[in-house]
């Protein structure tokens, strides 16, 4: 069971965290998308006691145990697409995505 960051993603997150403070990055799944689920990516100021901790390239990822099955094995990348840049989930569990790409189904 794990979730990882690519090097470029880790660098980016570290830059953000250095500026803002915080103990790590929280990755979660919400069940409210148009195709079932949606990702949530937040700075973490504190860990919940149930949180699972993963280390990747020096960044701590906090994931609640309910979200983990949906994103187990996911690699989080930081990419540039045209004028846009942001984080991209390479999630092996995804079976279906909605057109806008905001949500997915497993």
């Amino acid at each position, binding site marked *: 069971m794990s979730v990882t960051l690519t090097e470029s993603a880790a660098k980016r997150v570290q830059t953000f965290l250095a500026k803002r403070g915080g103990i790590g990055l929280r990755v979660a799944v919400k069940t*409210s998308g148009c195709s079932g689920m949606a*990702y*949530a990516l*937040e700075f973490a100021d504190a860990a919940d006691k149930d949180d699972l901790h993963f280390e990747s390239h020096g960044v701590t990822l906090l994931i609640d145990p309910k979200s983990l099955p949906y994103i187990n094995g996911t690699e989080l990348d930081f990419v540039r697409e045209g004028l846009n840049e*942001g*984080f*991209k989930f390479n999630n092996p569990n995804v079976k279906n995505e*909605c*057109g806008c790409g905001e949500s997915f189904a497993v």
Partner: protein
Amino acid sequence: MALLQIAEPGLSAAPHQHRLAVGIDLGTTNSLVASVFSGETAVIRDHGGNALLPSVVRYLDPETEAIVGDAAKACQSDDPHNTLSSIKRLMGRDLRDVSNISDMPYAFVDATGMVSIKTRAGIKTPVEVSAEILRTLRLRAEAALGGSLVGAVITVPAYFDDAQRQATKDAAQLAGLTVLRLLNEPTAAAVAYGLDTASEGIFAIFDLGGGTFDISILKLSRGVFEVLATNGDAALGGDDFDQRIYEWILTATSLATPSPQDARRLLTLARSAKEALSTTTTTPITATLSDQRSICLTLSREKFDELCADLVARTLKPTRKALRDASLTVDDIKGVVLVGGSTRMLSIRSAVAEFFKQPPLTDLDPDQVVAIGAAMQANVLAGNRKGDEWLLLDVCPLSLGLETMGGLVEKIIPRNSPIPTARAQEFTTFKDGQTAMSVHVLQGERELVSDCRSLGRFDLRGIPPMVAGAAHIRVTFQIDADGLLSVSAREQSSGIEATVAIKPSYGLADNQIAQMLEDAYSGAEADMQMRMLRENQVEGRRLIDATEAALAEDGEKFLSPPERAAIAQHMHLLADIIETGGDDTIKSLKAACDALNQATQEFAGRRMDASVKNALAGQRLDDITAPNPVTA
């Protein structure tokens, strides 16, 4: 996948919500509702796990809500006058249109347009009764999906005429549903089987429901399908098979005229016997009538087939006719889809298999297949799928646009746009102080108004007087799913609006459309030339108007008589070229416009200086150098 940004704790934006849309099969005997959720299409069941909602409505009294479905169906025998079933047969019909009406134990009231029924709760139209069914399905769907619906796709037999379709739409509206589209039942079935994406070829959709029989021949190629022919019998369905068994029971028990209660009870028994015979070879029919007589009969599958042989044969006649209309033979048919609960009857299945020389497709539940297809379509129409996966069902055959200055057509909706669609574009006034604008709606591919088909025109009046080009007039073209075009024009600053509704495909046959397209291709080069000419002419006229206005205002002030004469000469030259017309004048038109521009440059410069001086007069330097943003 969209790219994500990191949010502050607890502040991740919720993605836009799934737009809840359903497909509804509003059937004669049973109705269903289905929806796409989490990428899967499924019928929505009630609390008891039933997918089918019997299309039966029982009215109690004016104060109490009507009972719909199984509970109403159970009372059919006891309360036949107030328990309404097979109401779809009456949709948009008047009394004499309906067959077997004497067998319906209702108190009919013939009103103009549509028959109505007198019940304990007052006189009810078929639209109101259907609305009760639709409302029940809507509530069921909203409870299951957890939110209010954006809209619904409701299926109708291919045979339904305008009055029947309108009645169905009215019923939906009454039930609080937004109709995304009315979809033909065979089309929905084809969509459900994925024929639109998975296969190419010609398919037959054999739909024997409770009250109607439809045969449709569809040609499918790369996601687009075309209805080659439809045929059917608007008064043939499972009910007729029930009727046969019912009549057989009456004969076998020598019961001449049963009471309404007994008639209902026996019909219910007949229906159960029919359904049983799809799985067993014989079935018992037992009942105790209101006069305490008891009935005890046994119906065998052979006897049933014999009773209904002519009904089965009646399905094949329209089938043959549909094939003939499409100029096809049985060998051209790649597959046959069975739709409707009545196609569970073995006699029907074997007749279809024998006729088409192949076993029909029966993977999906024939009761659910139409609702599932409608749900898939609803999901697309509600905007829950990627644009490139858009299911192309209906397109507007020719471009739609409006007339602009110079007799040119500005296209707003290009041809082959999937409908429903809406497009808007902004236009402005041509003359100073123009207070009205005529919107001339046109259809066709050509560049000139005279080569296109006029659909209608309307005027937008009350535009506040402004200089030419200052008004913002937004013209919106909207085509709804039923092909109805509405055009509205709105002046943005004052909010005045005018609208017209048009049926664009009205009176245009396929070959006329083809001819219009061909003309557009062959005339493309000439059209381009003509457009350039007209555009330059319009530009020239605009220039002349503007120069005249400027001369009238400031000509005396800034120009010496010789200067004025020079400008006037250029104006006359340009006006002459515009007047002459002719394709070869484009170049000289451009040259004359440039020359006039050149000649008025000095004049324009002086006017500009004067107005700047005016603007600055009486102001302190501080006011001017203050950081006032310069607007373009």
